């Protein structure tokens, strides 16, 4: 995945491309400046006192003057930090309300993110789309914002949705619905991943967010709404898929497969990766994955399919047509 990752512009917390991340970065620089100033002052005094007051061989043997304390000094170094805390706390609270209490505009795009061990389900309730691991959202023009409002929930254990260039992280907690929002104003692909330990493959629960201009986004939506079209050349592969355990966990619209335990595969070839980001989405990788997912992602909940070599070739040949 190294080559694929390197094609994506680097940057994280301090390269925001969306209002929540941007607001956070501004506050972060402010608090970094304050803490750096404190560090230089206190650290400088410590360093000075160690150098200035270190024992030297020439010192006389008498003990230095004993100083038991000083109330004015104690008062000063209590009051000054109190003032700093006052300023920093107020600034922070204001930013909390700016991000968390933002009012949802009428034209917001809605996404429901559902965390699974160890992949992401993305549902667009208004658009009738279900996809996985790669979230598509429209570009938001700062003058006419079209933000995306995200509801987060979990199908099993706690997860956390984190794409640092777009927003801070929000946890996905079973029996609880959280919300967050993003309004990316630069097109591109942004990387993120699950940030709450969720079991064996927590490390390989990766996220890609694809931000594209509205027209491209709308075209993607149209394509995602279509059902899979059967091509005669690969019909046997579809048969293998439908008659094996694949169909009990996966959905492919336009076939008899309606499982919901695993990702929806109707348009799986429109995605860049397999296994929630573990490898690029090529026929070879797909074949390795279907043969035994544990070889790419040990611990993944999809079992080895134990297909014959012919069945495997056929099913992959059909899957690569699911564009």
């Amino acid at each position, binding site marked *: 995945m190294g080559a694929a990752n390197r094609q994506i512009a680097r940057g994280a917390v301090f390269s925001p491309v969306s209002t929540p991340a941007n607001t956070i970065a501004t506050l972060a620089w402010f608090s970094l400046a304050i803490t750096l100033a404190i560090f230089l002052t206190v650290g400088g005094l*410590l360093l000075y006192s160690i150098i200035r*007051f270190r024992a030297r061989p020439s010192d006389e043997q008498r003990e230095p003057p004993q100083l038991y304390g*000083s109330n004015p000094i104690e008062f000063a170094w209590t009051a000054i930090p109190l003032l700093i805390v006052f300023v920093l*706390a107020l600034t922070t609270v204001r930013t909390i309300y700016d991000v968390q209490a933002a009012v949802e505009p009428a034209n917001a795009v809605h996404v429901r993110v559902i965390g699974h061990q160890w992949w992401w389900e993305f549902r667009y309730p208004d658009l009738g789309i279900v996809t996985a691991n790669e979230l598509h959202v429209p570009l938001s023009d700062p003058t006419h914002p079209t933000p995306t409002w995200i509801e987060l929930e979990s199908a099993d254990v706690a997860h956390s949705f984190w794409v640092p260039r777009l927003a801070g992280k929000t946890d996905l907690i079973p029996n609880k619905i959280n919300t967050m929002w993003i309004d990316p104003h630069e097109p591109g692909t942004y990387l993120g991943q699950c940030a709450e330990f969720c*079991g064996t493959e927590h490390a390989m629960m990766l996220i890609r967010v694809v931000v594209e201009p509205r027209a491209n986004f709308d075209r993607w939506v149209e394509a995602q709404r279509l059902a899979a079209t059967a091509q005669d050349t690969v019909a046997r592969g579809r048969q293998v898929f439908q008659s094996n355990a694949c169909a009990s966990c996966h959905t492919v619209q336009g076939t008899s497969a309606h499982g919901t335990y695993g990702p929806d595969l109707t348009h799986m070839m429109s995605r860049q990766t397999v296994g929630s980001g573990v490898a690029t989405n090529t026929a070879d990788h797909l074949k390795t994955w279907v043969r035994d997912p544990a070889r790419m992602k040990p611990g993944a909940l999809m079992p080895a399919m134990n297909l014959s070599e012919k069945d495997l070739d056929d099913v992959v040949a059909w899957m690569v047509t699911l564009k």
Partner: protein
Amino acid sequence: MAGTIDDRFTFEGRDSELAPTVALPIAGKVHEWITTVDHKKLGLMYIGWGLIFFLVAGLQAATIRLQLAVPNAGIVSPQVFNRLLTLHGTAMVFLVGMPILTGFFNYLVPLMIGARDLAFPRLNAFGFWLWLFGSLLLYFSYIGGGGMDGAGSAPAVGWFAYAPLTETAFSRGHSTDYWIISILLASVGSTATAVNLIATAFSMRCPGMALNKMPVLVWLAVVDAGLMLVTLPPLSAAQIMLLLDRYLGAHFFDTQAGGSAVLWQHFFWIFGHPEVYVLVIPAFAFASEIIPVFSRKVIFGYEVMVAASCAIGFLSLGVWAHHMFTVGMTPAGNAFFVTSSMLVGIPTGIKIFNWLGTMWGGRIRLRVPMLFAIAFLFQFLIAGLTGILLAVAPFDWQLTDTYFVVAHFHYVLIGGIVFMIFAAIYYWFPKATGRMLDERLGQWHFWLFLIGFHLTFDTLHFAGLEGMPRRIYTYQPGRGFELPNLIASIGVIFQALGVIAFVYDVIKSLTSGKPAGKDPWDAWTLEWSTSSPPPEYNFADLPTVHSRRPLWDLKHPEDPDWKYE
């Protein structure tokens, strides 16, 4: 206020005429240590076992760093990695930090207040053995954790064991049960110690030692024990609830049956955040004894230091949900915990300023304990400041659960606490063994460990800012994680060399170290007035004191402390 020094209390001591010097055979020695109720022996056993677990959990950390040195490494499987991180974290808190720190309090509190033992010696022994066997259970899980269906080994749920990952649906076998029961037993042991420390400090002080004449260390032991008493029960309660979930079909945290995952987080962190202070307050205590002695000055602002410690104790009980800024609390809830968390910074700052005031105008002797204490001051300052950054809730939405947090809390736990534990060992080893640790090896230990610590944990802040979450068994290339991770792993080599120098120093000095005498550091508190090692009864005659620095008064009869306090 009496103006003379009690003539029964002399430097020379009279223990030689009383101390039994019967050479025991090995079996007799073992029997003596197993059946002992002596606070010094129990304290040393706490510290010794804590150091053994420190080496084991440290090796686990080294394996973690080896796996993360380069992307896509296959040194260990994801399952093994997740067990490593769980045991490393759990062990370092409950099997290393807690016992070493309570071990020091066990050893020092009676000596510093002129008492012959803790108030409840048998309770003390009970607490130790409960803790030890609880601790051994955690590692026994590698053997016994498979369970009837063979699923599992050691626990793999992280040290805060978030629900519902710990429920039977997601954690099969007995591994999670070992995590629960081991920590439950260790906590009961720690609670017993806490009761004992408070009772001792309040009822066993020698004549003349009013509460405001207790050494700062003893005050901090009281605050620490108070925090343990208040915060361990919520953890124990939650662990029992989890056991009920797992075995009796209760649904406290079982989200599939309507339980609450967030409830566990509240229970855990109302213990877990004060726990950080339970661990760091002893480090403050060591610093408050070592910095004055090596600066040759009385502690600056004794009353303020004690008050600030009590304030830290109280405030730390009201900040727990700053670990939960991303679980979806209301803005008002977040605002409350932002403010309370930042407020803890004020008494903490006061402590740093008072240590600075203690060094100011002193004559600082840069011996090994002081070197560790100085490094502690800088590192704890940085840890406090990154803590302020994490209290800025919106910034925390980015930083929490990343390597920035990992770096932050290792700055507290290693840069602060482990450095002060080393300082304390170099400082009190002569008292406990009668022999000095080697100064040159100590310098090697200090510098190697310092370099290693900064290579590892300075760089990990940047890995977090690049977007690297914690607890991932590997990462892909091309995301900017490679360089900080490689440097961090190289740092481990230096840390390990430092620890090897330390272990060698301890082993060598136990047999051939320079004899220490009673008072090798020219110090001022009561433990230095008795022989090294102290006899079982500590003091032949109970001392009478008139100030916070009884030995200063003895050494400077022309200018005693009680004139100024």
